[in-house]
Each structure stands twice: as C-alpha cells, then as structure tokens.
C-alpha cells in the first residue's frame, strides 16, 4: 500500500493493527490501554538483590529463547554493557532474542556475530550504523529491524507494541536495592532518560553497575522499587568514550555561515520572544548556532525559557551565563553536560516525557524551535537521517521525527552537497521524518521555506536571508554534482522505519551491490 509520503509498504508488514503512515497527527486523541509488567514481589525484608555475575543474573532472570531484552545507549561509544551481556548469552546458547535498544553503535558490535548465528533475530533501535548497520543492510537479521525514534520507542513500550522480558540497565552508581543513577561513579552518564520506560515496563529489571553506593542513592533515575537484581562488574564503560571533552566549536566557514543563517531564521521567525524554547543537536552547524543565537539574545535582552535535548557544553554555558533559564536533559553529550545534570535548574527527563506522542503531552510539543541535521531532503521536504545515499544503514532518527512534529519551527541544516552526494534531491532514499513536519531547510547555497509556512515566508521577506525554493536548491545541487543514478535494491526488506505513532513510514531494502563479509568471532 502506498502511504501518505508516497512510499510502498508491502502488505505483509501491515497486519495486527500496524497501519501505513497517514499524516503526522493521524493518531491524535488515540485511545489505548497501557501495557503493564508481570512483577515478582519482594515481601521479605532480608531479600538480597545483589548477584555475583552477569551469567548468574541471566539464569536468575529466567531468560530463554525467543524473549526480548533491552539496553540503553547513555554509555554511548564507551558502552561495555551490551557486549558483556551478549557474550554471556552467547555462551549459554540462548537463541532467537529480540534486542530492544534505545540506540546502537560501534560499541555494541558483539551483536554482529549474534545476528549472524541467530542468537539475535529481531532488533528495535534508533541508531543503526557502523558494523551493525552493515550486517542488517546485508539482510543477515532474520526479521526486519524496526527503526524507532526516541519518542516512538517510549510509545512502543508503553502501548505494548514491545514487551521487554528482561531489561539490562547500565548505571554509573546503584545502591544494593537498585536505586540507580548516572552520576557519581567512574562511568558517569549524567542522566538515564532512555532507560526509564525499560525499568517501569520490563518484567525483569537488572541494574549493571561498577559502583555500589550506600542507600539511598538519590536522586535515583531508576527507582529500586522497579529493580529485580543488581550486578556489580569491573567496569561498565570506557569513560573517555562515554562523554567526550569539550566538543570543539567548528571553525569551518561553511558550517559557520549555515549556523548564522539558522540563528537569523530563528530571530526573524516571530517566535523569538522572551521565554522561547529550543533544542539543538551536536553537529557542527547546530552547535555553532548557539553562539549566534546568544548574540541575538544579548542584543534584544531576550532569555530562553528552557533548552532541551542532548545537552552539550555550549548549552550548559548559556545556562550558566543566564541566557537559558532551565535545561531539560534526555542525554548528556559531553563532560560539561554530565557535570551539570541534576544541578539546580538542570533536570533529567525521561524519553517519554521528552518525545512520546502517546502520553498526555511530551515536552517536544512545547518546543518553539528545533535545529536538526539531514543526510537527504527531498522536494517534498521529507528528510532521511537513517540510510546513506548508497543504501547502507548509517544513521539514527533519535528525536528527529519527534521534535520536528512538536516544534513550531523545525529547521534542517545541512550542506547542499557532501562528497558529491546532493543532499537536496528529487526523492530521499528513505523517509525518516515527513516533510509535513519540516519548515525550513538551511544550506550553504540558500534557505528554503516549506510553502505551507506562508507566515515564515512573510516574516523573512524583508530580511537578507537568502531565500530559494527547494526545487532551486535541488537544481543547484544537480548542476554541481550531476543527477545521481538511483541505487538498485533487492526485494528483501531489511528494516522498517516506524513513524513515532507506530505507523510505517518506509521500508528499507537490501542494496544490490553490497559487499558483506562475515565477521570472524575470534575478533572479539
């Protein structure tokens, strides 16, 4: 069936209530009954949650073939937890597992042999890149991977689309009863936002930490009342790869010029008022936008009510300097953000509070501005942030579709051409975020406003913002790079791109010319 963004979704995936994408607010007012976990009560006061090893906790948890396990990605590229757990599962010979991860990256590469030998046959994730992107692109995972945004994952857990049997939650500190936090250990992550739903909705909840502290470990991101077991391991992560030092602000003229235009668009949009709210990513241009924004705020004596998202040092600096009143944090990207988390005015929010479309109003709904990246944008303003132009999975929706749908003004910032690949083109390789939710596209060759935002076009008319139509941007890209020939795909569907409301916005097939060689197990 052809869905609302013109993508052909095979009927075989449209069953058991799964529908094709039908517009960003299609499920407004949707009524459902929340899922609930099956819980084992700890009645006796002398119960002991501490377990000696991951092997032992796998046995105690009753993990068996066909179950669903979950992980979060706050340890980012420094994560040891996923590989530690998967190695023990592999040794036990448990098969047919579904991994429901908030995101996956290069630190989780032990999943690759697990996918190849059928230990893992299903995956739900936001990030799908590096070796994991390759193995899934090559069609080695038995069932198509489900790519979910951060809000979409929170929704899927709460509405019961995903039932987690055992959640493994890495935490930098925990007390013996499982009150766990991302602060205070040697592997600090600041917040544990993406694990909140896992702890509340999984049947069994396991905290994996490398530092047991005295009770109560407050403020506890994960509450001990939700936790079955606590395992202490030598190390849950490589601190140097969890939160990097200061992300250097770009000196790239192209990125700085784009950042300047982004800030200018915000300034002239009509939404730049005292108490405004915004979210920005960690990419070069997005980060640089904060310094131009600061200049506008100082000039007009305007303060930001709150900044949200993956938090970075530039945001923390604006907060400390009084330009930003409050910080809502769902992920800490660098050491400054980790250190600032849980200080006065810097609040941790859960993935559901952040972006879930099915709760009673997530913070994304209250955003004035969001600044986002793109691998590709098409002339209908649809954005791809998941699949490379060569067809291989190499990205992550993260909060992209969620914030774009929620914010008053969603701004894409991307160079017109990257290594010859036109960013703006006739048709994106796959749709992650529908054009209906994208308002402005800022490139190094001009700024395109979605024609449905006549208010913004009017507001920008008398400014020096270099306005172009999206078709003009595409034509420029094709003029410099040439029109790309379409990449050929096999029929095999390797991943489903789920929109945040659970409808299917696109399917991703196996690229025809993909060379994939099996990864030798002895590499690990």
């Amino acid at each position, binding site marked *: 069936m052809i869905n609302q963004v013109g993508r052909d979704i095979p009927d075989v995936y449209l069953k058991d209530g799964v529908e094709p994408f039908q517009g960003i607010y299609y499920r407004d007012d949707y009524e459902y009954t929340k899922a609930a976990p099956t819980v084992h009560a700890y009645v006796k006061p002398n119960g002991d949650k501490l377990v000696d090893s991951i092997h032992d906790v796998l046995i105690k948890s009753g993990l068996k073939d066909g179950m669903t396990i979950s992980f979060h990605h706050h340890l980012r590229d420094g994560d040891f937890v996923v590989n530690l757990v998967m190695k023990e599962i592999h040794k036990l010979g448990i098969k047919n597992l579904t991994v429901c991860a908030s995101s996956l990256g290069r630190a989780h590469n032990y999943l690759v042999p697990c996918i190849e030998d059928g230990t893992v046959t299903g995956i739900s994730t936001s990030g799908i890149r590096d070796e994991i992107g390759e193995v899934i692109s090559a069609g080695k995972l038995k069932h198509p991977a489900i790519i979910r945004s951060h809000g979409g994952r929170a929704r899927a857990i709460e509405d019961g689309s995903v039932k987690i049997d055992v959640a493994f939650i890495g935490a930098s500190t925990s007390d013996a009863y499982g009150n766990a936090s991302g602060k205070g250990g040697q592997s600090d992550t600041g917040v544990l936002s993406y694990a909140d739903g896992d702890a509340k909705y999984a049947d069994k909840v396991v905290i994996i930490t490398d530092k047991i502290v005295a009770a109560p470990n407050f403020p506890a991101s994960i509450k001990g009342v939700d936790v079955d077991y606590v395992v202490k391991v030598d190390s849950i992560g490589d601190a140097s790869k969890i939160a990097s030092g200061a992300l250097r602000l770009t000196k790239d003229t192209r990125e700085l010029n784009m950042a300047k235009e982004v800030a200018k668009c915000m300034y002239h949009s009509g939404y730049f008022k005292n108490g405004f709210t915004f979210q920005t990513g960690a990419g070069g241009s997005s980060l640089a936008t904060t310094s131009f924004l600061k200049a506008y705020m100082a000039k007009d004596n305007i303060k930001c009510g709150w900044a949200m998202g993956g938090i970075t040092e530039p945001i923390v600096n604006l907060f400390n300097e009084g330009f930003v009143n409050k910080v809502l944090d769902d992920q800490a990207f660098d050491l400054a953000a980790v250190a600032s988390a849980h200080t006065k005015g810097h609040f941790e929010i859960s993935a559901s509070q952040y972006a879930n479309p099915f709760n009673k109003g997530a913070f994304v709904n209250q955003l004035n501005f969001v600044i986002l990246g793109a691998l590709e944008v098409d002339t209908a303003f649809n954005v791809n942030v998941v699949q490379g*132009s*060569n*067809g291989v999975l190499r990205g992550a929706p993260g909060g992209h579709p969620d914030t774009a749908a929620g914010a008053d003004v969603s701004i894409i910032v991307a160079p017109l051409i*990257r*290594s*010859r*690949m036109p960013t703006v083109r006739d048709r994106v390789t796959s749709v992650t975020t529908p054009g209906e939710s994208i308002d402005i596209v800022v490139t190094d060759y001009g700024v395109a406003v979605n024609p449905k935002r006549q208010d913004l076009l009017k507001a920008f008319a008398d400014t020096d913002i270099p306005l172009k139509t999206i078709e003009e941007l595409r034509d420029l890209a094709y003029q*410099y*790079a*040439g029109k*790309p*020939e*379409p*990449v*050929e795909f096999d029929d095999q569907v390797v991943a489903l791109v789920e929109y945040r409301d659970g409808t299917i916005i696109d399917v991703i097939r196996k*690229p025809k*010319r993909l060379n994939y060689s099996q990864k030798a197990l002895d590499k690990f």
Partner: protein
Amino acid sequence: MKIKTQAVAGTLESSDAQVMILPNSSGLKITLDSSVYDQYGKHIIALAEQTAKTLQLEDATVKIVDKGALDCTIKARIETAFYRAIDQQSGLPWEVL
C-alpha cells in the same frame, strides 16, 4: 602520447580524487574505485575517457580512486597526472585544458 613514467596527482581526502597513470603496452585502460560508484560511476568513467582523448593519452593505465570529487576536480587530477607522466612541466596548453 607515450607515458614516460608513472605519476600521481590528487589525494584521498573527501571530495577529492587520486589519479595514478602508469605505462601500459596495450591501449588505454581506466579503473575506477569510487565512494559514489553506484550513482556516478558510469559518468566518471565517461569523463575520464573524454579527458584522456583530449590529452591524446594512449597506452596507459589510469587508476582513479574517487572520494566524491566533482567533475572539475577529477578532470584536473587526470590532467596533472598526465603532464607529470610525460614529464612536461612548462608550456602547458592551457587553452585546451
């Protein structure tokens, strides 16, 4: 034009191409390894053939390793490698380049 020596131009940086020209006794051979092979491979090979023809480059192997360079870059790298390979450092025919 006969190639005197093996020569190289360009880098493996993103948006550049590295072109190596080697002597070959049996005609012109072009090989392409490109980060955008699927989308622009045929076009780049046609461009290289056209450039070689303009330069009257014969009996040579042209190895192109492309990292997403635009046409102007690829052409310039081939031309530079060519003039290095025939050891011509001055009096370049700019009007045909």
